[in-house]
């Protein structure tokens, strides 16, 4: 039944090269970011924060690192941006080894960190000007560039205000503007739209698309599936320090199988045999596989592997001893509407009743859950 990709599969299937966006003039040949067998081990920690990760990002590509909290995304970015010393492996930015020559690597890159680190003592404009001065930009050039970017990010009227009164969205916009001051080849964005309102999020997304057009390579981390699907040319799914899959969002969704989904909330009969019921559903013609999903949020009884499937990597709790209701997501091989009548038949046979039905298509979120399980992360 279930054909799933999981941590049990050793090699993350890496599919073809990135689509070919605009390539920056004068860029060195080769990938913008190259990571090979990267390992980060912290003392007194049982598992590696980054555990043998390899990938490369083409010049001008928008690359998303997707994963739950603690998956190792931020640590990976930390190594690439010279702020974390790797325990093993190699990391290069535009051909520069970040360990051997961190100063040269910093000239090529810029970071928008997860936590704001603006200079609180300075105005918005001075934040940009000093940043550019650190990178050797002349006074006239940096002044013109700061004005341009302030306008571009809608901050012209706040330019001379100190940044400690800025809203979350303004801070994030200024952080990105500052990162762009020195024309980096590679921009790292760590959770760029976390905590922002929808307007600010869409604004940031548009700016990231602009960067792609301008040939800037973007590497972003997120646990927002919509963000990854909307922005990234390719997505790497990370969990527990490992890269589990790496492909275009469309190919990843295709890989979990199922052309459409049917979510069914099921009220169980008094003497219902749940495993038999789920087995019956999975055995229906036209069903690719099914997952139990939680009826009442993440704390509810949901098994990561579905009936008989392999356990998820997160080790979610055992199913509730005698649930009165369950919720399953059925992945159909074709049009899920054709499953409605057979599913109702199976439910009736086991004395269960359908409570609600939702038709849908698999999303990146299904890929994510399929790869990383349902267990809560720290």
């Amino acid at each position, binding site marked *: 039944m279930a054909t799933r990709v999981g941590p049990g599969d050793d090699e993350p299937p890496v599919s073809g090269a990135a689509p070919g966006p605009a390539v920056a003039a004068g860029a060195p040949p080769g990938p913008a970011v190259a990571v090979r067998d990267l390992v980060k081990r912290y003392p007194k920690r049982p598992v590696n924060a980054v555990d043998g990760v390899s990938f490369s990002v083409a010049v001008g590509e928008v690359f998303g690192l997707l994963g739950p909290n603690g998956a190792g995304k931020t640590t990976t970015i930390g190594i690439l941006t010279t702020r974390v010393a790797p325990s093993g492996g190699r990391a290069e930015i535009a051909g520069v080894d970040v360990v051997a020559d961190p100063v040269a690597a910093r*000239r090529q890159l810029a970071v928008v960190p997860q936590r704001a680190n603006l200079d609180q003592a300075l105005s918005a404009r001075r934040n940009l000007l000093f940043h550019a001065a650190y990178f*050797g930009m002349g006074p006239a*050039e940096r002044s013109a560039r700061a004005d341009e970017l302030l306008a571009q990010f809608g901050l012209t009227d706040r330019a001379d205000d100190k940044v400690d009164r800025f809203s979350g969205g303004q801070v994030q916009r200024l952080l990105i503007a500052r990162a762009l001051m020195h024309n980096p080849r590679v921009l790292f964005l760590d959770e760029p739209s976390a905590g922002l309102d929808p307007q600010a999020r869409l604004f940031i997304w548009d700016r990231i698309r602009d960067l792609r*057009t301008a040939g800037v390579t973007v590497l972003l981390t997120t646990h927002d599936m919509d963000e990854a699907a909307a922005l990234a040319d390719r997505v790497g799914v990370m969990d527990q320090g490992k890269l589990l899959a790496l492909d275009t969002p469309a190919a990843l969704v295709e890989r979990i199988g199922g052309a459409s989904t049917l979510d069914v909330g099921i009220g169980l009969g008094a003497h219902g045999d749940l495993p038999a019921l789920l087995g019956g559903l999975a055995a229906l013609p036209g069903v690719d596989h099914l997952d139990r999903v939680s009826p009442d949020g993440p704390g509810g009884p949901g098994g990561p592997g579905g009936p008989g499937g392999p356990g998820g990597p997160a080790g979610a709790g055992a199913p509730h001893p005698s649930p009165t209701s369950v919720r399953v997501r059925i992945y159909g091989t074709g049009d899920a509407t054709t499953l409605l009548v057979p599913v109702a038949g199976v439910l009736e046979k086991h004395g269960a009743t359908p409570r609600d039905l939702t038709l849908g298509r698999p999303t990146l979120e299904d890929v994510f859950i399929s790869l990383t399980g349902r267990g809560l992360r720290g």
Partner: protein
Amino acid sequence: MTVTETTATPGGTLARTAGPCGGAPGTWAVFRQILWRDVYVTLRSMPTFLAQVVLQPLFLVFVFGKVLTELGYARADYSDLLLPGVIALTCVLTGLQGTALPMVIDFSYTREIEDRLMAPLPTDAVALEKVVFGALRGLIAAVVMFPVGILVLGHIPFDAARLPLLVVVLILATIVGSAMGLALGALVRPDQINIVFALVLTPLLFTGCSQYPWPSLSVLPWFKVATLFNPLTYASEGMRAAMEPSVAHMNPVVAVVVLAACCAGFIGLGGWGFRRRALD
């Protein structure tokens, strides 16, 4: 995705060729810029800065040098040996406080130092800039103490022939203060900085021979030995040797050599701690 498309704006500014700007700046050029950032911020809050650094020594000189001598509880010449000690104290404490506390806040709360850590220069140079800037602050505070001394005491001890020694001791004292600040700021956890400050500052303040000459401690031999573990002792004694040589004082060569060694030691220790904080 129609929503995002309707809000899209043209590429404009962003649509320029990616790639580092200009020529690659040298370490010294970047160092000057990050030093200028700290100077710029201080210049914009000069009254606050002066209040921070001048108030405590001003009161020390006034109460001990003026009030106590006027009331007859201290000898009239006490102010002559006190002022060099207070200037040394100002050098060391201003450097220490001005470096340690902002660094703790920088690393834990505002994280604003990260922009400089991401600048194209070695991490050690960022640490060194903190020492240089802390020393500059200490030097300004110490220089201000001379007119303050004249104003409060009427005159200050000064020996033009010993001006070079005065300058050397001033510079070394401010560097040792900010280097100690670098070590404290980089090595102490943010949640412990209050207790560490209490444990370090008070003994530093009172065992550094700034209020009494070191040779006179022969009547308290154990304390005379204890004061030798405080770098401020050498700064105070060096200042006395430079400003009021008639007061019995430690050999200035010893004071200068020990101060220089302390500078090197604390810069090494602080630089190591700073690298550990900056690089995970």
